């Protein structure tokens, strides 16, 4: 009959009106600045740089300024300058490091490609979303100091992922140690043959 649909509609809105006062399942609003919902672990927005030590975040960056992320970044928001000198990384190997590492998060589109291409697990995705700045030209360009965050922080925001990364790095470290031992053993009886064995591998990239 005419009007029954109207009454049904009014009943639905009335039910929602009453329900929002006593039914928490209906009334789901979080009063944001005072209350916060826990972010899901997979939440990500902008990249940060992982460093080994919390005491000296810039000095112990995992990044070796290989610039792969800079080249792969689709919106080109990463800017890296290599250092002139080298310093030892976590494995004791001498590496160059980024003298300048800037990310313009006004341009970043949170695609995570930099994280996926990084061979050193040096760049990861952060969860900080309160990034409002009063000056969009300087306030949204994050430099090395702002980007460097300790591995402990990475464990806090993405526990599973950080554990995987640590496991892989530890395995690499063990492999490097074994390799060094083997090289040391091989070096004692016959030093000259070791040289030719490693030389073809170094020469391979130019040939390809």
């Amino acid at each position, binding site marked *: *009959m005419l009007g029954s649909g*109207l009454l049904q509609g009014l009943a639905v809105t009335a039910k929602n009106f009453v329900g929002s006062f006593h039914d928490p399942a*209906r009334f789901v609003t979080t009063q944001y600045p005072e209350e916060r919902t826990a972010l899901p672990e997979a939440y990500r927005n902008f990249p940060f740089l992982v460093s080994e030590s919390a005491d000296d975040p810039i000095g112990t960056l995992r990044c070796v300024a290989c610039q792969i992320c800079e080249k792969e970044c689709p919106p080109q928001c990463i800017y890296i300058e290599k250092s002139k000198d080298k310093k030892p990384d976590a494995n004791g190997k001498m590496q160059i490091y980024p003298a300048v590492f800037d990310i313009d998060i006004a341009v970043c589109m949170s695609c995570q490609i930099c994280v996926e291409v990084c061979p050193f697990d040096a760049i990861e995705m952060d969860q900080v979303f309160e990034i409002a700045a009063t000056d969009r030209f300087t306030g949204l360009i994050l430099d090395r100091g702002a980007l460097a965050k300790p591995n402990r922080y990475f464990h806090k925001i993405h526990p599973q992922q950080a554990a995987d990364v640590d496991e892989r790095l530890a395995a690499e470290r063990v492999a490097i140690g074994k390799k060094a031992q083997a090289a040391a053993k091989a070096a004692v009886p016959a030093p000259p043959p070791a040289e030719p064995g490693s030389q073809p591998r170094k020469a391979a990239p130019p040939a390809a």
Partner: protein
Amino acid sequence: MSPAATTNDPLLERAPVILRDWLTAFLPEPARWLANCLIIIVAILAVFGLLFAFLTLAERKILGRVQNRPGPNRTGWCGLLQPFADGIKMLTKEDIVPRAANPVLHFIAPVVILAASILTFAVIPYGRHLLPVELDAAVLYFFAAGAATELAVFTAGWASHNKYALLAAMRALAQLISYELPLLLSVVPVVLATGTLSTSGIVAAQSGWKWGVVPHWVVFTPWGAAAFAIFMVSALAESNRSPFDLPEAESELIAGHLTEFSGFKYALFFMAEYFAMCASSGLAVTLFLGGWHAPLPALEFIPSYVWFAVKFAALLFGFILVRATMPRLRIDQLTRFAWKFLVPLALVNLGTVAFWSLTFQWAGPLQLLRWAVALGLVAGPYVLLGRGLTTGLGTRTYRFA
């Protein structure tokens, strides 16, 4: 406010009149009369001005709750200062007048629409002793003053020199005039049954209780219920509110006749819309819901103006809930609904009330017959007209989509 505040009423009932008389007691006679009038005007402006402010807040809160969100709650405790923040925002906005617009009419339109809607508050009895102006033809006056808002809507559209505003104003005019007819026709039965055009007389006719429990309100008769429904639908359309907000259909006409208005002029239109809604609700309470009468004899100790406020608030809540529920009508649906459904229904209702008035002396089993005939006269046309309204309008099929 009638000066004849009889002393046998409870103190709370007479309190507003006593307060007014105490304030103006020291003045000589002609000045005293003038001061009394001014006090009434100031009281109406203050009460309805504040009511408007908090009604906007209540509307946003209720709409929010219907959509399962809290609504404004940042400004002041529970958002109570939100209307004032909005007011300051509106006041500080730039008043833009288009170069091609007629500046005089552009200025006058919001003033006239607000003035006309305030005028209608004068004849509504808010309580036993709270009738601002006692008129013999108060109902007539109400509709005469209310109809002036339609003129202002068209003035606004014309003065803007904007095709959307003009189109919207013409639409608004078509809508307002279409719905003026069922609105008036739904009031006629009440006038016919009570035999008076004065609002205080209509309220007085609804006093008393049948068997001590059922109040003699118009809405509790078959023709009264039908007239009340027609009145509320037409009042909704007259106040340009959802689902009849075609003049402001933003998807089609930007903001309709309000397109070229900004700042405080826009706020005045907004205020006029709410005042019109309040006035319609006030008249509906007066005509159909027994005015300021209490629903039960045992509840008469509560002052009459409180009862008026309760009924009034219930109707306003209904307006807001309808807004939260109904989608907007199309212009052809809107006019068809008025001319093919509401007007015939209201006309048939005149016959029903005539029958009801002629059979008032029927008693015993005839009383049952009287009710049955009246109910049939209300329900029959409703079903038949409703069928006519919806035939040929089945679910739409898309052949090429």
